[in-house]
């Protein structure tokens, strides 16, 4: 077997094992939460008899191990079950929410990734001169401000004062693509500002690292232009660390944007998960947890494989 295929197969198997381990952790974690779903559904209005009735109805009296394997079996066969709290089909709700989350993440990534890499290259080209310093200063400032604060500032200026875009990012199926993009314009800006610095700085550092190499000096001595050197010689060799940090940020855009969802009332996965955690709706929490884990592990897998493919030493091992 070609060593690359073997390596990739190994990575995939490892990923699956990780996912399995994650499912056990998620299950154990939800068990440790104080209170149970019946208590949370009824809240302050709980009486002992209504609690007992609801618990029996929801099957909360079965032992945890039985519940875990029932659920895992269901998950593997594509049946996510129904939410305990409102009796809706989890698969349906999750696919709607996940679609929204991916939609937002996609547009944020489509703008921020090319922009970050471009700014990184620009920073290298003008290293230690004002464009480099300006780019670093601005992006580091925006990453240092809490994301909800940036959100509020942009809402105030762009939505309330200028009236350009909507401050509420609720989207739904009957909207046209244009309306949807209008609705998510401000959150996309916020997310771009939040993830830009990390990717830009990593691009800059990785390329600068390569720029110290002897072959770059050779290229320079051949009389090659700076941008061309970066593009042809430095960038391909700096891809691995850049892809890594890009994937980390993509994962963040999918699983870590609950604060942005709250600020803009965006119907994504994060808000959905938080609502169900506070209701102790274990099946939903586990489904969301596992999907998040899968996204995280999957994107890291992609990063690994890309770095393997991008590195000739790993591609052609001796």
């Amino acid at each position, binding site marked *: 077997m070609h060593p690359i295929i073997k390596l990739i197969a190994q990575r995939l198997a490892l990923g699956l094992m990780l996912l399995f381990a994650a499912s056990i952790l998620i299950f154990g974690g939800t068990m440790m939460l104080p209170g149970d779903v019946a208590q949370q*559904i009824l809240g302050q209005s709980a009486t002992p008899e*209504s609690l007992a009735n609801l618990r029996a109805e929801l099957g909360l009296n079965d032992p945890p191990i039985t519940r875990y394997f029932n659920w895992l079996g269901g998950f593997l066969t594509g049946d996510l079950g129904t939410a305990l709290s409102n009796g809706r089909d989890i698969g349906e709700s999750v696919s709607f*929410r996940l679609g929204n989350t991916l939609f937002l993440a996609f547009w944020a990534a489509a703008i921020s990734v090319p922009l970050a890499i471009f700014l990184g290259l620009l920073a290298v080209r003008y290293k230690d001169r004002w464009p480099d310093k300006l780019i670093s200063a601005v992006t580091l400032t925006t990453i240092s401000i809490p994301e909800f604060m940036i959100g509020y500032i942009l809402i105030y200026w762009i939505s309330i004062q200028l009236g350009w875009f909507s401050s509420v990012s*609720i989207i739904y199926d009957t909207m046209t693509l244009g309306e949807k993009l209008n609705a998510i314009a401000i959150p996309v800006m916020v997310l771009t500002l939040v993830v830009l610095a990390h990717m830009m700085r990593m691009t800059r550092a990785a390329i600068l690292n390569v720029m110290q190499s002897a072959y770059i000096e050779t290229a320079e001595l051949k009389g090659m232009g700076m941008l061309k050197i970066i593009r042809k010689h430095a960038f391909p060799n700096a891809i691995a660390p850049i892809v890594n940090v890009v994937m980390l940020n993509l994962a963040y855009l999918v699983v870590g944007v609950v604060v942005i969802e709250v600020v*803009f*009332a965006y119907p994504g996965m994060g808000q959905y998960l938080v609502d169900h955690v506070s209701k102790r709706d274990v099946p939903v929490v586990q489904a969301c947890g596992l999907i998040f884990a899968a996204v995280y592990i999957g994107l890291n897998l992609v990063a690994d494989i890309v770095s393997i493919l991008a590195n000739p030493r790993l591609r052609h091992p001796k």
Partner: protein
Amino acid sequence: MNDQLKHLTGEVAKGKMTRREFVGRAAALGVTAAVANSMLAESARADAHAMPKRGGMMRIGSSGGESTNTQDPALVASEAPLNNIRSWGELLVEVDSEGLIENRMAESVEASADAKTWVFKIRKGIPFSNGKDMTPDDVLKTMQRHSNEESQSGALGIMKGIADMKVDGDNFIVELETANADLPYLMADYHLMIQPNGGMDDPAAAIGTGPYTLEIDEPGVRHAYKRREDYWDAENRGFADEIEQLVLNDATARTAALQSGQVHIINRIDPKVASLLDRAPGLRVESVAGRGHYVFIAHVDTEPFSNNDVMLALKYAINREEMVDKILRGYGSVGNDFPINASYPLFDDSIPQREHSIEKAREHYEKSGHDGSPIILRVADGAFPGAVDAAALFQETAKAAGIPLEIKREPNDGYWSEVWNVQPFCASYWGGRPVQDQMYTTAYLSTADWNDTRWKRPEFDKMLNAAKAELDAVKRKEIYSQMGRMLREEGGVILPMFNDFVAGVSDDIGGWNNDPNGPVMNNMSHIKCWLKDA
């Protein structure tokens, strides 16, 4: 007229600005005095002849919605789902903004002389949104569903005292175990929406006799409704053609949506920003004194709170005025250590107000002989808005009186299951009830599940039952007054403040009427208001 001027005329109408000030400000905007005066007259006329208008799409932004919400009225416990069921459902009776009973599905309500048998005559020819007519049998089934021991209805507690229910012709008859002069007020509980066959087939079907039908239901995101052409009370309710409720749990997101004109009405404005928001053009902040209150509750059957001198020391140590100023920013009123205020019928205003007094607090504390070990007060952000800050203020004033109050911060998560009604001393809130009887029965009766101060006094229970059966208002008021005084002197509830309901309303909205029964016109603003420019 531009927004700025519109806003100014509104300020005059609200009495926030004098005519002279208005003319001055208008002149600054380049308007002559004569024009400014005629503008004012026009604006006043427009208000006086405010006639409901039909049409348009009204949008409301609400907190208290989650993706776990359902349309089943039995399970409604927060504001967004309450707005939902008010859109499509109606009750037998409602409590109006004056505290009187307003007949809805019932045409008339009559009690027997002993207040044990109640007859609700049910209106005829009112169609459900599924086309069928509502019948007394549907009413009976609804009440049976909510009083079923197996139901999870939030109204289960108030249905407990009912011995028998039956239908007789056009009448729905309720027989009580013990007399209760307030039964119609209990029937105004929002869970008791009349549904076809009592909602036993599909409780979350959103079919009722209300002015709207459910079009889009995305819990925790948005809910859209369309006006029914065959609504029975179209004269008074259901003016907008369409209603859209957006769930905006974040306070800043809500105010931003109102300011940028994306919604017309929002609930729960943070008192911290209310006065600032009121200055913004195109909208106003409406607040109304309600019955809801914030409390620190102690179990009076547990040391050291079983010692009434400790309780009195704590009650004198708390600075109520300061709390209303700093926690509610003036959007509220001081409490008097019993859960009733002037918003309730039969309130006795001659009960003296307890004042903050370090000397009296110290005196009672020393008299109690408490050993000086810390008194632990548990609190979480979610106990009530500003609860942690209020506890800190309480701690400071208690310290001045030599009382070692110690604050233990608890997580919001699990607060209502692990701390409230479990730990001996914690912060909490009550939403209030339409009548005194219901408030006391819910939280201060010996056998109440939510007796969160462990207040178990046979003589108190006896007075409560006597008041229930008493149809003479004067005598009832006297009994309630005694109960209030007793709780104030010996109870485990420290009640520093009653909070106002604060809402934000766009100037495009007509028909706003403050209702002390609940926030945003008792969660009926969207069915009772109209769009001026529709």
